[in-house]
């Protein structure tokens, strides 16, 4: 049963899935909704609260579905509208919500809107896109895909005009100055919410409007429109959410929360590379600095935290020096680099070091925000850097050691992408079935962490205070929510570390380790000493000496 709490997303664990990559139900080598339905029990077992689906709309697939050719249909290879509705029902029956990518900013050049628009200046759809007779307009806007695009304008010989695109040239930007476009996208959202979807991950929201003399990002007009979207959802679709993809600094993302009247959630993009930097350098400063620069958000809003996703590990929000450090550390082979980032999965990035994988997941699970797990990272799936673009991190999910990793029973040659089959990360050794069968695998660890996280709303809703012990290799913070105080301690170094903590404020309380329920020595006025193994971590609940009122009213007199 679904939680009725309107703030459910603040406690939720998200799980990102590409329909084509998860499970093939009809044996054609491409994942689909039938296959996905068959794997819902697994996601429920894991403890997932909300699935985020990448675009499943009809598309020429030049950008893996982010080039949408029809917003109101399901791509044939993934299934039918009935199957989508069945999938939503089955997910909801298991207490799992579903949000889906909605590409607000642009369409495919194959969309009928664009086809009609380019056909004639008099076309009713001409105004759906941004046209110019030169390629110098909005010259201050940066080019995002610098590997492939030389300009944000592309000449269309049929339209005999340049059209505006912030991403690939086959993805013309919609013209949000046109009220018909704004209305059409509102109707698109209403259509999917009526099917039962629980919200949208809104792609590339900073770029909806263009104004000369600006960088054409984060413009006030964009916020005005997004607030209109939110109003519509609040009125007609309570409990549904909007998640912003805005690859910006936190201070620039902050306006997307408005006064709690715009997006419910937004990704914290710049944190991700700093987590890797912190662990690689054994220094907590990059992580703390990032939170120092993260502004407060309204109480009904939430950050989304992640380690990896379907795109490259973006380094757009890094300085040149930081970017060089990340490339040197994590992507010395140029094949691992895509655009301004690193297209690798979590486990290979961390050299398959289980200690680092746990540590980074522990950070994402305990820092303020809701965690997102990228499909396959819960079992430590590998990647294939030989594949083009970002396909290397979009290979089939590895379910078993059977043919095609249990993803599909088709001829392996028909698979949309080859299954990872190398000796370290190959499906024969890394798969769900084997990790479910053993008690101490990464998968079982993830399940346990998710379970423990859910037991303590402080993880999703608590405030954060960083402690600054003398040992800078240890990252320590306190999360507080109502009567709960959690102490989170992470050793970012690859060697055992001691740390002395000033916990005078909590004198008298007893730290209880959340995973094993072991009671640590009581906190006193004196420095509290902990020792941590290499990349070790503690999740400690500081249980007060004198509870502020008993929870059940019988504890002190049970005997």
């Amino acid at each position: 049963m679904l939680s009725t709490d309107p703030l459910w997303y603040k406690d939720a664990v998200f799980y990102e899935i590409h329909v084509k990559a998860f499970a093939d139900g009809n044996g054609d080598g491409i994942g689909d909704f039938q296959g996905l339905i068959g794997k819902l029990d697994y996601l429920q077992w894991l403890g997932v609260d909300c699935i985020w689906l990448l675009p499943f709309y009809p598309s020429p697939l030049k950008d893996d579905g982010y080039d949408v050719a029809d917003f109101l249909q399901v791509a044939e290879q993934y299934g039918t509208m009935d199957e989508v509705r069945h999938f939503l029902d089955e997910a909801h029956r298991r207490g799992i919500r579903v949000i889906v990518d909605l590409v607000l900013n642009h369409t495919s050049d194959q969309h009928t809107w664009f086809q009609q628009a380019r056909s004639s200046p008099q076309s009713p759809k001409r105004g759906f896109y941004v046209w110019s007779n030169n390629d110098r307009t909005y010259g201050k806007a940066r080019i995002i895909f610098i590997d492939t695009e030389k300009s944000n304008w592309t000449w269309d010989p049929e339209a005999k005009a340049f059209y505006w695109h912030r991403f690939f040239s086959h993805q013309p930007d919609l013209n949000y100055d046109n009220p018909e476009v704004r209305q059409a996208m509102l109707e698109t959202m209403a259509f999917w919410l009526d099917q039962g979807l629980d919200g949208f991950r809104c792609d590339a929201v900073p770029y909806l409007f263009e104004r000369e003399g600006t960088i054409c990002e984060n413009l006030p007009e964009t916020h005005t429109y997004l607030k209109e979207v939110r109003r519509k959802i609040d009125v007609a679709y309570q409990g549904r959410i909007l998640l912003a993809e805005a690859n910006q600094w936190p201070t620039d993302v902050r306006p997307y929360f408005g006064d709690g009247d715009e997006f419910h959630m937004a990704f914290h993009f710049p944190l991700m590379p700093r987590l890797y930097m912190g662990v690689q350098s054994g220094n907590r400063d990059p992580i703390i600095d990032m939170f120092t620069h993260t502004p407060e958000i309204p109480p009904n809003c939430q950050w989304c935290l992640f380690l990896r996703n379907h795109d490259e590990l973006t380094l757009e929000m890094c300085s040149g020096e930081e970017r060089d450090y990340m490339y040197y550390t994590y992507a010395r082979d140029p094949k691992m680099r895509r655009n301004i980032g690193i297209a690798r999965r979590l486990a290979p990035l961390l050299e398959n070091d289980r200690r680092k994988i746990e540590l980074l997941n522990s950070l994402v699970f305990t820092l303020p925000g809701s965690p997102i797990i990228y499909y396959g990272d819960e079992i430590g799936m590998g990647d294939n850097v030989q594949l083009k673009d970002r396909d290397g991190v979009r290979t089939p999910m590895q379910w078993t050691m059977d043919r095609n990793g249990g993803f599909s029973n088709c001829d392996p040659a028909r698979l949309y992408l080859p299954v990872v089959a190398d000796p370290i990360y190959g499906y024969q050794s890394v798969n769900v079935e084997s990790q479910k069968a053993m008690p101490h695998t990464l998968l079982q660890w993830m399940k346990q962490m998710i379970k423990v996280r859910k037991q303590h709303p402080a993880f999703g809703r608590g405030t954060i205070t960083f402690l600054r012990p003398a040992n800078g290799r240890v990252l320590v913070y306190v999360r507080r929510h109502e009567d709960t105080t959690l102490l989170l301690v992470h050793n970012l170094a690859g060697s055992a570390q001691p740390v002395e903590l000033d916990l005078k404020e909590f004198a008298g309380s007893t730290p209880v380790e959340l995973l094993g329920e072991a009671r640590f020595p009581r906190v006193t006025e004196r420095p509290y000493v902990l020792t941590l193994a290499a990349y070790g971590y503690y999740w400690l609940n500081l249980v007060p000496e004198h509870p502020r009122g008993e929870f059940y009213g019988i504890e002190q007199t049970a005997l």
Partner: protein
Amino acid sequence: MDQPTPNEHAVTESFLPEPVRALLDGAEPADIVIGLLTFNDASTAPAVARTLLAGLNRNDQQRILLVNCDAGSQDRTPDLVQQAVGDKSRFWAVQHPVMGTSLHVLSESGVPGRDTAVRTLAMVADRLASKACLIVDGNLKSTHPRWAELLTAPILEKGADCVLPQFNRNRYEGTLTSTLLAPVTRALYGRRVAYHQGGAYAFSGAFIRSSLLSQPWDGEVPTYGIDGWVMTLAVAEQADVYQARLGPRVQQAKPLGDLATIIAQAVGCVFHMMERYQHVWESVKASTAVSTIGEQARLGDFVGTLHVERMIHGFRQGLRDLVPIWQIVLSPETFQQVLELGVDDTESFRFPSRLWVQAVYDLALAYHDRLLYREHLLKSLTPLYLGYTASLVLATRAQPVTQVEEELERLAIEYEAMKPYLTQRWRWSDE
């Protein structure tokens, strides 16, 4: 009773700290040893000592020794107790051994290593040929002079082996004791003891020699807490037990730990002793009252706030999280009935007494069969206990207090009636 041989003395006394052995060398006998257990109790222990001595000094013919067994107080508790008792009384201050594990296992008194304190006192009483050993917690603010008399008179005058306390209780106070510990003990050993833990009890010198010091004092004792252990021991050894109604029990608050730990320790003690005393309890068919002295009192009004909805929520959380464990430790019919309880709404929620008893017996059997790591098994009782307690409160909170007493008596009878369920399965698992 047999006197220990010199060699036995040597073995048992190796446990005693050197300062205690030095005190014992050449010490004069004491008719009554008062053991005062303390740990940072400077605010209460001196008054408790004075009160107990006042109660016993009425009889000048008894030779009395007050032994302050302290766990290493940082607040000068032993010094202050000594000042309080004055020069005229015989007084020893000793520090009992505190093992590493004891720090995590605080009894209701909050004194670490309480088991070693009791053992030390028992050995001192034995060496001094005492007729009675009275043990009282130093943080009991409600200690009254008549406590000393009530706890020692049955031993000195009637030849009793031990005297256990019975405090005045309020409605819904001590629900773990009244819904599980006491009725299980009654059903097992046939003695209707209140099983009120902590604070005050007394043993005869003979009982100490024959039953207390002869115990293995193994590692399980500190794990489960000394109070439940000595009370269960008394009834299991079929000692001549008396109960003393001591009135209210007011304690300087000290942390007890979380509910699941309390349950694991208290219930674990009962289950642990079931294994040792199977030969006793399996043949017991009925129960009898124990001799009780002191003024009788009914249950008082409940003080505080009961969060029944939270208890039911706690039970349902168990239904969500502990089903894999309950499937192992509960019988299939018990498990099925427990599952069905989860669908009731709050006001109509009821946990039948028979089902509760059956679940408790199932857990005892699972403990015996070692179906799971025992601490996890015992802690898995917590949601069931919350569910049954919530049901008890919902069924009786609008009723007079007599209704609560009657309900608890019916429950105790249910435990006795269902004992064959336990006995038969226990025997099967042994075969």
